[in-house]
């Protein structure tokens, strides 16, 4: 069984990413369940998707302390979901912070570094991804989700292969977006820095 949490900010494409993982697992004959945040939070709020792969899965929600992997689309969002992570679970996180409007208003100078530091201190297997650079390379800020999927798959965190994900992307995305997302997938798979791998 693999439990995966995707944590991000509304609009970053977490829902699509979770659907791509679930569909890829399905294509391989692995049972999948997901739960998404849809609604008000999609307008720039914190969003969390749960993806569960394998037999003997009942609940669509992953119980606390049971996630094998957290894919954080933003450092603070990864930290917010850390209580879901198993001991020795993996965290894949985009380094780029997204400042909440409320943090901009008050004098809390949130820049994500404190969150990344905290992740480094808590997570035994942490992979950071320079999502901003990959998105710039691929020419769109919208491909962060596939870039992070690439990183997660190359870390063997999801039990699926890049080639399988490539097939799902070709199957599920509008044809004009496929090339860009495949580039992000493979760049994400290469351009990660493994930290704390003990």
């Amino acid at each position, binding site marked *: 069984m693999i439990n995966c949490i995707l944590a991000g900010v509304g609009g970053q494409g977490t829902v699509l990413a979770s659907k791509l993982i679930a569909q890829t697992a399905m294509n391989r004959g692995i049972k999948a369940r997901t739960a998404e*945040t849809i609604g008000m*939070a999609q307008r720039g709020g914190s969003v969390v998707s*749960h993806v569960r792969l394998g037999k003997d899965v009942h609940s*669509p929600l992953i119980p606390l*302390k*049971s996630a094998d992997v957290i894919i954080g689309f933003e450092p603070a969002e990864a*930290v917010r979901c850390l209580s879901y992570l198993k001991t020795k679970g993996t965290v894949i996180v985009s380094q780029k912070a997204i400042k909440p409007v409320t943090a901009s*208003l008050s004098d809390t100078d*949130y820049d994500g570094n*404190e969150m990344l530091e905290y992740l480094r201190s808590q997570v035994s297997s942490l992979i950071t991804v320079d999502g901003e650079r990959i998105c710039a390379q691929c020419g769109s800020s919208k491909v962060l989700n596939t870039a992070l999927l690439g990183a997660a798959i190359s870390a063997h965190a999801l039990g699926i292969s890049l080639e399988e994900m490539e097939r799902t992307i070709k199957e599920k995305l509008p044809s004009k977006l496929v090339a860009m997302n495949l580039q992000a997938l493979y760049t994400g798979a290469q351009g990660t820095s493994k930290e704390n791998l003990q």
Partner: protein
Amino acid sequence: MKKLLTGNEAIARGAWEAGVVVCTAYPGTPSTEITENAAKYKEMYAEWSANEKVALEVGLGASIAGGRALVAMKHVGVNVAADPLFTFAYTGVNGGLVLVSADDPGMHSSQNEQDNRHFARAAKIPVLEPSDSQEAKDFTKLAFNLSENFDTPVMLRITTRVAHSQSLVELAERQDSELKKYEKNALKFVMIPAYARRRHVAVEARLDKLREYTEATPLNRIEWKDTKIGVITGGVTYQYVKEVLKDVSILKLGMSFPLPQKLITEFSRKVDKLYVIEELEPFIEDYVKSWGIEVHGKDIFPGIGELLPETIAEKMGVSSSEKKALFKAAESAALANVEPPIRPPVLCPGCPHRGLFYVLKKLKITVAGDIGCYTLGSLAPLSAIDTTICMGASIGTAIGMEKARGKDFARNLVAVIGDSTFIHSGITGLINAVYSKASTTTIILDNRTTGMTGHQDNPTTGLTLKGEPIKEVDMALLAKAVGVERVVIVDPFDLEKLETVLKEELAAEEPSVIIAKRKCALLEKDKVSTPHTVSAETCTGCMRCMRLGCPCIVKDGKKVRINPTQCVGCGLCADVCFSGAIQKEGTSNG
């Protein structure tokens, strides 16, 4: 063939397989995708109705005419549809009718977390509660058979975690959708007192039959394991119980009204300790207690918010090393004093509502609000909304405020309402404003779509759910037709004009309507736009632009900067900037 489907997709599929001919709904999270998906099947007519009451009326019309009908709405939508529901429960059906009530425990996207099983009991109609997508499809089909066999509308109650979670579903083909014979039958369908009295007798007799049915149906089943603990549960909570309580015996209720008293009594006798684990209200528990059975429920489990798997584990005393580790992790986070910044939802970059709320805040106006994306205008820094109650409440609320506090108060008071919400139930409030001689200023935020639920068309947008062009409701003409003589259309990005118009209309001692018209920014996503930038030399750091609450503008030391990947170039920030420091990228000062 098996397919990965959300609960909502599965319900649409179930309706199609059941031979449904008419699907109606008013969009509302977490129910919206049911009807969006139903519209994809060409064999079914599907519509966005003007509101949930109309949706149910169209559905029951289809049923009386002999077709099967699916009507979907969020929990609070059932409040709107309650009037036809309670009497349609008396008449019963011809073609089967299933009402989907999508409840939202935890209020992910709702204004309350009412438990609609109470509605079904009050209306005396059966309730089925699926626990995953396969059951969502199966129960939908079964609900249509129940509806026709027992001559009753059936409620299919789902919750957010069933609606918006995906699991595997075995697909089947569409069954025959031949219409039932239509015959005029006034005794059954004309609810004048004399006939309704007879129907009430039929309703009670039907309920007795349903009580027999619920004892025997496989919808309610026992999964025996260790008999030390017995758990009665249903809906998605069943899945949580299966996940965290491995050894307990479970009575799973797929039908939660009427309840199987005998089956429950029998189950209670065979277990040492009985629990009811249910989300929100003690609906099952109250019945069980009323039968004199000793049971634990809300004495242990919360009746507020979502009931999560970890809460069930904790309350049932399932302790493990994992759980201990969890507390350790929580402790260490507390020790490290690391608190991720809170991240509430915000109006999107380029949102046409932003300028309006900025002006309302600036003029310190009291704002009676409504339900939609614009409800986000209540959050800091805009903080522009005083009340939000339900769909369409803004105008009535403003009238009441004026009646209580007088004309002077009304000179500083507006109602704000979106286009779809105005059609849903705002127009009646507006008629009331005229008739009650109020001087209400109503601002219709016309963004050409139903935004919050994910961009559905409505009678003002010119397209149907199936994407066919249709004549739009002209809201300005409509306002005039009900007697509002002062109707102005403004662009909410023209802040100067907006402010002038607002002041004029607030001063007027008669009702007026301002239509703030501009397309939702998310509908303009494909438009190539040039982001704005801040000149660090010119920026004085006054932070005036920060009052817009735009997610693209971030503090950078003592000044601000604009995130170019998010900015859509709406220019609102440039308009409010005193020093001219904000310009479109590539243009220079002066």
